[in-house]
């Protein structure tokens, strides 16, 4: 990604990201690029302002009857909630926040919910209870997985481009820390020999030996963006090495980098 042609291509993707037209898989990679490139961050900020401004073009007068109707409905709900007391509001706020976070996985989740309903209908029609229970259990697991993936992706992209994220540069990109979350945003990883994977390692503060973390392959362009399952506030360093497929309990090759988080 260092040659001018590739960089221009990445900056075009930054524009698409600012407009919100990138598929989710590419969005995370572009967020990584933005996180690691000052020029990309400037471009993103400028074009994001343009994209945000587009919303204004939809600002049109609303039919007065509709406007009044919407307002009455809203104020009735809001006033009722305000009168219901802070305890009830707090409970509802937690519930509403949870639902909102599922935004990116919503379509898949909706499809799975639809499948669950279909299965339940299936039970009453066919009385094939055991089979339906197995399908229900499988779909429920898928639904939970979909929700987790959606939240995880959104959180990762948010963290990677956040102005308050701390970036610890390495030759291949950066270790990005935000709050208690830690990510590898790498873009110059050499292709792996067959049967090998990249493995991350974490060194807890005060420890002398690294602990094994996740393994991952980069994509065809040598890009990998991964979240490490560790509490960033308790880490002293992050390392990366090439290991046999399946990972190792301790590094078996010279680390590609060891990056202190300080």
């Amino acid at each position, binding site marked *: 990604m260092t040659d001018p042609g590739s960089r221009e*291509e990445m900056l075009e993707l930054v524009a698409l990201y600012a407009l919100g037209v990138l598929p989710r898989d590419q969005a995370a990679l572009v967020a990584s690029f933005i996180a690691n490139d000052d020029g990309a961050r400037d471009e993103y900020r*400028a074009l994001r302002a343009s994209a945000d401004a587009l919303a204004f073009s939809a600002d049109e007068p609303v039919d007065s009857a509709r406007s009044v109707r919407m307002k009455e409905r809203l104020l009735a709900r809001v006033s009722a909630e305000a009168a219901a007391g802070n305890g009830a509001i707090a409970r509802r706020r937690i519930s509403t926040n949870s639902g909102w976070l599922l935004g990116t996985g919503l379509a898949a989740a909706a499809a799975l919910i639809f499948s669950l309903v279909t299965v339940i209908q299936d039970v009453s029609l066919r009385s094939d209870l055991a089979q339906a229970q197995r399908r229900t259990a499988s779909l429920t697991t898928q639904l939970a997985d979909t929700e987790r993936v959606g939240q995880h992706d959104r959180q990762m992209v948010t963290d990677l481009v956040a*102005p308050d994220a701390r970036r610890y540069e390495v030759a291949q990109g950066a270790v990005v820390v935000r709050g208690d979350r830690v990510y590898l945003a790498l873009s110059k990883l050499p292709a792996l020999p067959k049967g090998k994977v990249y493995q991350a390692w974490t060194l807890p503060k005060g420890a002398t030996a690294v602990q094994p973390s996740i393994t991952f392959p980069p994509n065809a362009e040598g890009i990998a963006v991964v979240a490490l399952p560790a509490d960033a506030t308790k880490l002293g360093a992050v390392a990366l090495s090439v290991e046999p497929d399946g990972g190792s309990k301790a590094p078996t090759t010279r680390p590609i980098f060891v990056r202190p988080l300080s």
Partner: protein
Amino acid sequence: MDPVVRLMERVRARDVAAFESLYDSYHRLVFGISLRMLGDPMVAEDVTQTVFMKIWTSPDAFRGGSFVAWVSRVARNRALDVLRSRGARPETELPADLPLDGALDDEILERLDAERVRDALSMLPAEQRAPIEMGFFGGVTHQEIARRTDTPLGTVKTRIRAGLRTLRNRLAEGVPQ
């Protein structure tokens, strides 16, 4: 302090009058975005209700920056959810919901109005304006834009970037740097 920020603080304190003021100021924008994206006034009305209920129930979700940009993104996100639920649409990723930390950008956004943005948009060449509007209001990926307009993917990317840059420069005119 920004009057909208002050209103949001009052909303956090469960002030219904402050919430009503926000509704009066921004419901046209929220309804307009929803209607433009969904094409159905009744569904747009429901999305508008959802967006304002989010403001009421989760005022902390607004973490500073331009309120109008934030509420627009919330409206667009909700409308995209509706579009996705209608059929097999590829999942696009809206930019992270973050305040922009450049004062200039917030300054631009706070000084905008619908007419000014429409004027700036209308000055873009049609081949730049069309993919930008299709992407923003249609909730489709750049690949889908290329397919629908029968345009090479690389050309779509270049036009979107050039159009957004031109738009930004036009909208920034007159804003103190």
